């Protein structure tokens, strides 16, 4: 095992990795930007070093400085978490050059899978099904038109280096092909520095279903039961569950075996995820991309299999062979994850940075909170707005749903608005209960209905506001007369630390 692990990340995933290291008995080194001195990962890790100013490029992406800290502290391995440097092949190589283990797959796997075109070529050679489309990039608008006619409508125009919903254009009419080509090219260039673009068939009632794989340095690769990630808002996953309501045992095995083949195509030797797009109509599945890192939603797989993926990933990087075979992986019950964001769901999901002045996290049976929050934390404006992931397990999907609703109801974050109540409404919706949704569900169906929902507790809200106004006025009056404020320790009109507009 490693002597010391540097965690090149922040937020909840830095905490997750620290917990795994802690349980393995390996000391940890945190890095932080100047905006994150008060962050929880700085406080819980064994060591902590500032690596630069607030902007990520100067801190969490500052390879030179991070490697300096690794050398200084004697860390012999680096866990990159997700995002930031986690899929950066150059970083992995520079770690290797210094004799530091990058906790992730081999660099070839990162490079090949990091590009949509090369990854498609690689997995196609292993007979992993692809969305009908092209394996090369488009040369120009004319070429685009030619391929569009060959594949047939509806189509997706995609930037080869794209991801996270950026650099994608749906095309339903042939005459829109040239404009979509130009748009995808320019977004690819501006977001990813790469203008390569290709075309593929658009899958109807699309569901995003992915397979976790785990490999070691001895050639073993196994797969886990699928994760259903179709509840998305603007192409960003919002709620994930495992298993999927539309996958049966035979399909699970077929998808798992395809994922292992995809992983084998690059000699995969770590934790990774093979993403598929699945037609909700035909249940055909097609390779989308492979993420060569620990995924945000890995905990739901952990909950239904009892496997600590973060820990196994570290052990595998240390050279340990996998401690189980495919046959040892069994599926038990059902797990759901909600990504809690610092966003206002009733105000177009505007980010809500600010100070958390009160916090009560849900607890009790089979509730797992993966969080970087604490009472007093000032959520900075510089980074991703994800505050925590709430994960539950239940013996059945129905029980997992009722447990998630219960846990969301317990989760109290005071000072900033979060997406917690939004999650409760999605999870409580009829379509979710039926498992009847695709990746367009939130944007096209749920949100319009949600905006018009009734607000049943208006009377109580008015009473609460009026009593606080009364108490404020009484305090003021007593203050003017030189008296003492009323019995409560804090008077009601004091700011809760947040300026309201």
């Amino acid at each position, binding site marked *: 095992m490693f002597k010391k692990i540097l965690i090149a990340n922040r937020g909840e995933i830095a905490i997750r990795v620290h917990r795994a290291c802690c349980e393995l008995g390996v000391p940890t080194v945190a890095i932080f930007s100047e905006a994150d001195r008060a962050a929880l990962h700085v406080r819980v890790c064994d060591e902590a070093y500032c690596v630069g100013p607030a902007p990520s490029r100067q801190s969490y992406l500052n390879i030179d400085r991070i490697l300096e800290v690794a050398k200084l502290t004697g860390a012999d391995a680096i866990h990159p978490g997700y995002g930031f440097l986690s899929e950066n092949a150059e970083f992995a190589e520079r770690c290797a050059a210094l004799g530091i283990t990058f906790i992730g797959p081999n660099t070839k796997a990162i490079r090949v899978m990091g590009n949509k075109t090369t990854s498609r070529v690689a997995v196609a050679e292993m007979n992993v099904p692809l969305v009908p489309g092209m394996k090369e990039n488009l040369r120009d608008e004319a070429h685009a038109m030619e391929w569009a006619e060959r594949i047939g409508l509806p189509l997706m125009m995609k930037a080869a280096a794209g991801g996270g919903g950026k650099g994608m254009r749906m095309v339903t009419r042939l005459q829109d092909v040239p404009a979509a080509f130009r748009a995808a090219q320019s977004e690819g260039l501006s977001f990813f520095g790469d203008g390569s673009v290709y075309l593929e068939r658009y899958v109807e009632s699309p569901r995003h279903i992915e397979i976790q794989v785990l490999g070691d340095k001895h050639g073993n690769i196994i797969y886990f039961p699928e994760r259903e990630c179709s509840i998305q808002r603007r192409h960003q996953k919002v709620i994930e569950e495992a298993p999927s309501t539309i996958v049966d045992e035979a399909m699970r095995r077929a998808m798992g075996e395809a994922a292992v083949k995809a992983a084998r195509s690059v000699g995969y030797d770590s934790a990774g995820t093979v993403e598929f797009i699945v037609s909700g109509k035909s249940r055909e599945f097609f390779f989308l991309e492979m993420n060569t890192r620990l995924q945000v939603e890995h905990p739901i797989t952990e909950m239904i299999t009892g496997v600590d993926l973060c820990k196994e990933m570290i052990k595998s990087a240390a050279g340990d062979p996998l401690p189980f075979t495919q046959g040892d992986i069994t599926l038990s019950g059902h797990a759901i994850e909600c990504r809690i964001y610092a966003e206002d769901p009733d105000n177009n999901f*505007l980010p809500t940075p600010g100070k958390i002045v009160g916090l009560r996290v849900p607890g009790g049976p089979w509730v797992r909170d993966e969080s970087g929050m604490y009472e007093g934390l000032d959520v900075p404006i510089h980074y991703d707005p994800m505050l925590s992931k709430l994960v539950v397990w239940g013996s059945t999907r129905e029980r997992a749903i009722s447990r998630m609703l219960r846990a969301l109801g317990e989760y109290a974050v005071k000072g900033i608005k979060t997406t917690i109540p939004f999650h409760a409404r999605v999870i409580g919706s009829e379509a979710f209960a039926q498992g009847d949704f695709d990746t367009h569900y939130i944007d096209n169906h749920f949100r319009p209905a949600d905006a018009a929902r009734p607000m049943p507790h208006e009377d109580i*809200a008015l009473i*609460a506001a009026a009593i606080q106004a009364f108490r404020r006025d009484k305090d003021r009056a007593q203050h003017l007369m030189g008296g003492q404020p009323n019995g409560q320790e804090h008077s009601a009109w004091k700011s809760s630390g947040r300026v309201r507009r």
Partner: protein
Amino acid sequence: MTYIATYRDQITRIQVKETEPNRFRVALGDKEFEVDFLEPQRNILSLLIDGRSYEVDVDAVETSDNFGVMLKGDHYEIEVVEERKKKLALKMAAGASGRQDLKSPMAGNVKTILVRPGESVSAGQVLLILEAMKMQNEIKSPIDGIIGSVTAREGVTVSLGDPLCVVDPLPQ
């Protein structure tokens, strides 16, 4: 005390009386409620009303009559003003103009400013773009009008509530 509460343009007259410490009698229009009150954490209230237990998160600012109430997952923005003060305010408002002071809805960086003073804009037109937490957010004009002044500066950070720009209504 008697208050006028405004929630979503709906006005309610509320009378509050403290009958004993931490007990209130609240009349909401013609409905009356007995409230067993406690504030176990600052600005987090525990109300027992007719046996039912409510946990209410109230956000209040000293200098304002606006209360943000979070209750069972829903957020209510309520203005509560003492009755006499409210009547006065309504009289004054009758003479006021429709000038729009746009304030920043969040902390962030001013990415792009798309208008200049004197420019005509229409309701819904994007005036500037704010960036925070890797998200870009468009600030739109609430009315048809003319840009008065622009306080925001490109590349400069603003806090929640900072003035961004002013839109004057078109002359009647």
